């Protein structure tokens, strides 16, 4: 297979795999959540987490989708700089992969025109799939990570250009307010993505990276950002909103912070939320067109 055929094949396969197979780090975090609720004696929260874990088991056994929301396809692609490839063809093949997954599996299509609401029936369209392109120096491989972004959590997205004087405290307050405002709607326990700094669009992109592409258990390499992650996780879980907003100790499975430098007069804070399924799937394409699926 040519490298482009492999990209198309991987895009199709990753879309389906991400919807069926919950990542190991998310499963482990849900198990920890269940134990926490059992220890606190909250039977409703325990019931919800038990059902979530049972549902993942059923999806494994029946080889079926975990959730009916097939989302909007989001890809993070890192191209090795030792490869000489056509970026436009890569984008085109990612799109065709999504269309094939939608038609061949078949997956429910969610894409519509924002004004006319006319459906495309392909899970693709103008600007969709969302493709975040990056580069990895010195390798001759392409890494593709795919996240089908569900609507319940994506609808709970927030951006605020705080004042510099609002500081760290203002950032924490805003993030907690977003979680409170979202309540039961984003399917908690969630993975909370926080993007700090940059311009407004950069902050939103960082929040998406934080919610959809980071592994639970990873910390930001910057100690200040890592400290903020820990403090926010503690605060968010102390709200008691709990699984599905029905009360409990597990509102978030993780809080991930990503940051960029910003303007002296900016203090941008973006929040993007991923639901408990934390779906993502990864493949690496080698220069000869070989595809390796899996976390690493």
């Amino acid at each position, binding site marked *: 297979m040519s490298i482009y055929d492999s990209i198309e094949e991987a895009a199709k396969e990753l879309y389906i795999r991400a919807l069926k197979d919950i990542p190991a780090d998310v499963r482990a975090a849900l198990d920890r959540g269940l134990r926490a609720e059992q220890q606190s004696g909250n*039977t409703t929260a325990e019931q919800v987490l038990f059902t979530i874990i049972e549902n993942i088991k*059923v999806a494994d056994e029946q080889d079926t989708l975990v959730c009916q929301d097939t989302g909007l396809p989001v890809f993070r692609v890192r191209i090795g700089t030792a490869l000489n490839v056509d970026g436009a063809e890569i984008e085109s093949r990612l799109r065709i992969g999504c269309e094939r997954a939608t038609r061949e599996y078949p997956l429910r299509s969610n894409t519509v025109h924002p004004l006319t609401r006319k459906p495309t029936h392909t899970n693709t369209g103008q600007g969709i799939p969302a493709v975040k392109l990056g580069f990895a120096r010195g390798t001759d491989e392409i890494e593709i990570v795919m996240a089908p972004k569900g609507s319940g959590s994506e609808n709970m997205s927030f951006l605020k250009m705080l004042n510099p004087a609002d500081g760290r405290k203002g950032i924490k307050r805003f993030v907690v307010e977003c979680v409170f405002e979202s309540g039961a709607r984003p399917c908690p326990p969630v993975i909370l993505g926080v993007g700090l700094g940059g311009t407004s669009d950069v902050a939103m992109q960082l929040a998406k990276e934080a919610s959809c592409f980071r592994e639970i258990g990873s910390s930001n390499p910057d100690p200040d950002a890592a400290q903020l992650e820990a403090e926010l996780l503690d605060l968010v879980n102390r709200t008691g909103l709990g699984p599905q907003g029905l009360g409990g100790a597990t509102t978030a499975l993780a809080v991930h912070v990503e940051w960029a430098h910003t303007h002296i007069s900016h203090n941008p804070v973006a929040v993007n939320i991923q639901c408990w399924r934390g779906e993502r799937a990864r493949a690496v394409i080698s220069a000869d067109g070989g595809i390796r699926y899996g976390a690493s």
Partner: protein
Amino acid sequence: MAHHKLETPLTEDAVRALRLEDTVSITGIIFGIRDATQIRIFDQGIAPPCDLSGGVCLHTAPGVRKLADGRYEKLSIGTTTSTRMDRFTEPLMEQYGVRAIVGKGGLLAGSVRAMQRLGGVYLAITGGAAALETLQIEEITDVWWEDLMPECLWRFRVRDFGPLIVAIDAHGNSLFDRVKAEAAARIREFSFD
């Protein structure tokens, strides 16, 4: 917190006997509805072509495969966020006799009052748990308004559908509101330092 095994259609007495955080499983018929379905019923004024009285409505847009004989095979049936469709709850109960809404994310104060007045409940299902939900739906028995695909009016036969959690009862109580009020009180105590 008791568990109730209910069969459809639901009576007002059965619904009024449910208390917040009780669990429920349903055997019988459940109707699938979503935004577009209810826009057609209430905003366009087109009555549903089936009897919803005593009915249970699930907020869903299922993933299905159409078979050669025109019937639909279930692929993935899950639940969408109810809050978007809040304003349709009262007329569903008042005009068409619906007794229970199954959804995720909850409903707002007007619906809580309507459920108290008319005898209805909101049963929270675990959002995202579509694999399990699909297993508990035995068959898609009927589909109306296929032009709204996937937001048609669906009729499902279910067995032991649940466990569902009573999150709004027929006595003016909402678990969502209680949890949010408690969360708001805790957040007021946060220093954010």
